[in-house]
Each structure stands twice: as structure tokens, then as C-alpha cells.
């Protein structure tokens, strides 16, 4: 009897020590859930979710403060991915945050009108605008995420939204049109 208690107690202490050591030795620095959520967000840094960027939104979601349907640029795809990750049911996008854009957009600066005030440069979350004080500015289209944050600060309204350039490289085969017969029959 006593041997059994002692040996079990000894094992418990041993495993406790191993677990305790592992917890210290292999401690993960940042919250991995936040990283995982952040990886699913589109990184436009547009703030439409009411948080100042994608990572703060991811942190809020991890704490349970924000819902999964607050990201208009991500659209349905992101919501489904987030639901999958967090083990909740997907839901439609919250219309308060904005609407899903039909196609991806970027902004361009009308360089004839630009006065070189640098306000848009300060607003751009990904440093995609190039220019200096009293010099013409321009958008690096490759890097623009289409967040449109540069538009409100512009005093001369010289920034326009245009669709992202389509090329053969990012062209997609259209989904075949479904006939009524096919739609009618499920399963």
C-alpha cells in the first residue's frame, strides 16, 4: 500500500517537474492565436474594422472583444477562414463596417494637381506614397493596399480610386455558369 502511494506520488512529482521545466524552456513569446488570426487578415491596414490596423483587430478578436465579421476588404473568404480557425459559425459581414468591394482597387495621384503637402504620405500605412515637401507625390501601385486612408487628408482632392491593374498573370478562369436544372437539384 505504502509503496504504491509513494511510487505514484514520486511519478506525479517527476512529471510535474518535467512539465514545469517544459513550460519555462519552451515558452512562446507572443500569443500564437494573434499571429494566426493576423495571418488571415488582408493587411490593408484600412481601419474599417474600427481598430487602427490589422494586428490590433487580431488582438481584439483573440481577447473576444471583436467579432469575426468586421473586415470588408477580406470579405466572405476571410470570415470563413476566421470562423474555421476560431471554431465559430461564419456570419455575414457587418454592414456597419462597409461593403465588400467587387474588385480590388488602388489609388493614383493626379500629379498635375498635387501641391506636395506630404499629408497623404503621413496617412499611408504601408509607405506606398513617394514624395517630399513641395515635390510632386506618386503612389507605388505595387505596394498600395487600397485602404483609401490617403484620400481624406488631401487638401486638393487629387487622389482617385482606380481598379487594380489586371494582367494575364492574375487573370482567373470564370466559374462556369450554372444552369437552372443544376441549381434545382442539390446533393
Amino acid at each position: 500500500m505504502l509503496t504504491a502511494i509513494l511510487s505514484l506520488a514520486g511519478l506525479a512529482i517527476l512529471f510535474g517537474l518535467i512539465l514545469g521545466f517544459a513550460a519555462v524552456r519552451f515558452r512562446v513569446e507572443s500569443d500564437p492565436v494573434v499571429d494566426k488570426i493576423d495571418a488571415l487578415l488582408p493587411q490593408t491596414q484600412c481601419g474599417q474594422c474600427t481598430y487602427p490596423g490589422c494586428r490590433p483587430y487580431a488582438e481584439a478578436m483573440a481577447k473576444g472583444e471583436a467579432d469575426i465579421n468586421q473586415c470588408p476588404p477580406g470579405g466572405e473568404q476571410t470570415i470563413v477562414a476566421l470562423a474555421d480557425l476560431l471554431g465559430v459559425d461564419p456570419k455575414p459581414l457587418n454592414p456597419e463596417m462597409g461593403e465588400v468591394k467587387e474588385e480590388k482597387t488602388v489609388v493614383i495621384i493626379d500629379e498635375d494637381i498635387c501641391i506636395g503637402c506630404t499629408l497623404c504620405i503621413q496617412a499611408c500605412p504601408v509607405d506606398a506614397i513617394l514624395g517630399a515637401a513641395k515635390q510632386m507625390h506618386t503612389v507605388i501601385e505595387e505596394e498600395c493596399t487600397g485602404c483609401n486612408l490617403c484620400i481624406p487628408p488631401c487638401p486638393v482632392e487629387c487622389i482617385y480610386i482606380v481598379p487594380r491593374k489586371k494582367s494575364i498573370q492574375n487573370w482567373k478562369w470564370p466559374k462556369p455558369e450554372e444552369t437552372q436544372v443544376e441549381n434545382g437539384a442539390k446533393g
Partner: protein
Amino acid sequence: MLSRLQQLWQFRGGLHLDEYKQSSTTAPIQTIPLPAKLILPLQQHLGHTAEAIVKKGDKVLKGQKIAEATGYVSVPLHAPTSGTIIDIGDYPVAHPSAMKSSCIVIEPDGQDQWAEKQTISDYKTLTPEQIREIVSEAGIVGMGGAGFPSFIKLNPGEEKKVKTLILNGAECEPYITCDDMLMREQAKNIIAGARIMLYSLQAERCLIGIEDNKPEAISAIQNAASAFSDITVVAVPTLYPTGGEKQLIKVLTGLEVPSQSLPGSIGIVCHNVATANAVYHAVILGEPSVSRIVTVAGDKVKTPRNLEVLIGTPFNDLINACDGLTDENTPLIMGGPMMGFRVHSSEAPVIKTCNCILAKEDQSHHEQHMPCIRCAKCAEACPVNLLPQQLYWYARAKDFDKAQDYKLFDCIECGCCDYVCPSHIPLVQYYRFAKTEIWVQEQDKQKSDIARERHEFRQLRLEREKRERAERHKQKQEALNKSGDKDKKQEAIQAALDRVKAKRESQQENKNQES
């Protein structure tokens, strides 16, 4: 030597299709007159787009390099004839999107004058590396249709020893006969190319697989290869899609290329016969890839035949060389009836991977497709052992992760499932839709990763600037405090004030004097 006794294997599935190869093989390969202009898309093949190194107005000679490779999976582009560059801009190209793409346009001067060519009599004076360099510089890509830069497939790699070189002369798709005609007419060059490839790969043997519906081609190649004991010509049974790389390897060797990997992983490299011909032209004659043989066929073509044309020749010129179409409104298809796609402009030019231009009655039965009844005919026909109906459900529901679990990317888009489907479901289009959708999602993912990095860097930078500003401010404050004795400062201020006062007074005096 022809091996009739060599054991052959079979892949699962496949179809016996009507061949329609007769009409375009009655006449020999013909050349056509120089077209009024040549349009050369900078994207000729898989991988990175080439970059133009000429400008508008430049005079170029035949074979002169006009665009440079960018990146590893890329090859340069050469002028197919001598003439003047008249434009570099967006033109219609043969692509299912109907989009325009960046092209170099040459107006031929009619001289067809070659730039200097480096001929070599014996390829063995070169090292395998030098041969790959020549093949790369000559802009050779796989001419069977996929268009992978050939020099990469001539590299045996450091450890992976390539034992077998397979030349693909199966040409299994209906209507297409360009490889058949090439084998009949230029068997010697193909074998010479095969010898160079064997040398470059340091491979032991070469198998040439030709479908048994091409007896002329088989005997021509057999004659040319009879002197070489390491080259074996194998007549393979006619069954679509034997010309698929992995299918032909299975038929000839019994080996299966693992899912999502290349034949190199099992010691095999597979090239098209036309590519071997191009390698011969590049290494021995010093001629880069500037022309190819194209089959023009289909029941709407008045005189179907095979044409040797310069890269960049508009489809219209090829159609005209075949006496035109019986119905001008027939849509053109690039490639065969099973795997080809509709080309939206007859002004689109021939590129290096264009093996066939087809103009035939539209027999597509996809208009009224019906629900899937799970009959599994598609699964029986699939030569890659996939479950096409599962892939269809997942692609249709946009469940791309699941589609990938079911090996969507092993699908070779041969169209067998599509062909046998009793509900006429456009299955291949669903797979193409899913594949491109996944690629674009991956591109977006890369883009968002870059955006995250840039955003994080910006945050860091702003913070650093803030910190530095605060530090500077602090240092200034300290400096002020240190120089400490406030009297000195006060004195300096007083002195400055005095100076101003004196100046004002003297000005006042001057004014007074003037008035």
C-alpha cells in the same frame, strides 16, 4: 532500333477518340511567305516574362536577341527575321482571357538576313554546361504545349542521376499532326538532337515513344536511329492521353511519377521530339528558336496542312495559307479539341508553344449541363486516378482546401472526364477556375505579407523617430541647463536687446535728419 518486344505498361483510364489526322498529313510541311508584320509576345512560355532590350525604330537581324530572360525559369526571345522594330506595346495574344499583352512588333525587310551564327561540327567538344547555356540562350522551351524552359530539363541535377531520356512523339490529341510530320521529314535532326540531350544529361538510354497510328513516323525515326544502340524507338498503343508526360512514362517504363513531383525524381526526363529538333538547330547550326511547325486543321479549314512558320506570325496568315475558312465566323482554337482554348482574335500571333490552330464545328455540349448523377464515368476515364466528381463538387462550392486535398493540382486538364460526362458538365472549366482562383489567392497572400512587413516597419520607424526626437529635445535641454550659469545667458540676452535698441535709435535719428 525498334523494339517490338519491349514490355509496355498501361495507365488507368484514357479514351479512344476519333483521330481526324488524315487530312493534314497528305501534303508535306510548307513554308509561308513572310507576313506583313510579326508580333512577338514577351510571355512565350511558363515562368517569368522576358524583358525587351530593343526599342522602337531599331533594325534587327534574324536570330538577334530582342528580349532578355528575367529570373531562372525564363529564356530570351529572338527576332524571327530581319527588319525594323515598329512598336513595343499591348496586342491581342492567344490567351483564354482575351486580354492584350506586351509584344514586340517587327516589320520584316524581306531580306531574312541572319545575324552571325556560331556553328559547331562536334557537340562533344562542348561540356554539358555549355550545351545547357546554348539551349537557354537560344530561347528553347518545351514545344509540346506546356512550354517549360528546356535547359532546366537538360540538367541532371547534382545527385539525382537521370538514367532515361524519353522523347515524346505520341501526339495523342485528335487533329494535331505537327510532330508526326516533323518526325517523317526531319528524323535525322531529331535523332541528332536526342544525342546532344543524352550527352547533356549524361543519361544511359533514350526511349522514343510514338503512337502506333503513325507508321511513317515510326519507320523514319527508326531508320535514323538504327545506328545507335542506346536509342530505342517504341510504338505505343494509340490511347488518349498517352502524350501526357506522366502517362507516357508509365507506358514506357511502368514507373509512376509521384504526385506533385517531377519525372526527374525517378531518374527520367521527358522532352518533345520538336524540342530535340530545336536543340539540334541551336547547338549544331547556331540557330535560336525562331520558327516552329503548326498544324492548321478542322472541318472549317479549306485545305488543312502543316506549316513551318516564324514565331509571331498572326493566325490570319496561317489560315490564309490554307486557303481560308469555309465559314469566316468560326472561332479559332489554339491547341487540340480536348485541351485547347478559344482564341478571341485571329490577329493573335503564333508563340513557341502553339502546336495547332483548329477551326471546327462547335460541338461543345456544355450549354445545357445537367446535375451530376454520380455515375463515376469520369473517375473511370481519369488517367491520373483522381475523383473528378469530388473535385467538381468542391470547386463548385469554392471549397478550395478540400479540392487540393483531392489533388486538384495533379489534374492535367486532359478533358477525358468532361468528354464522358453524361450530364455534360464542363468539369475541366471548374478545375481551371479552382486552380486560377487558388493561384490568385496565393498571390494575394504574398501581397498581404509584404503589406504587413511594410506596415510593421513603418510603425517601428515612427516609434524610432519619436524616440530620437524626444532624445534630441532632452539633450538640448540638458545642454542648456549645463551651460548653466543663467547670468551668462541673461547677459547675452541683454546684450542682444541693447544692440537692437541702439540700432532702432540710430534709425530714428536718420529718419529725423531726413525729414
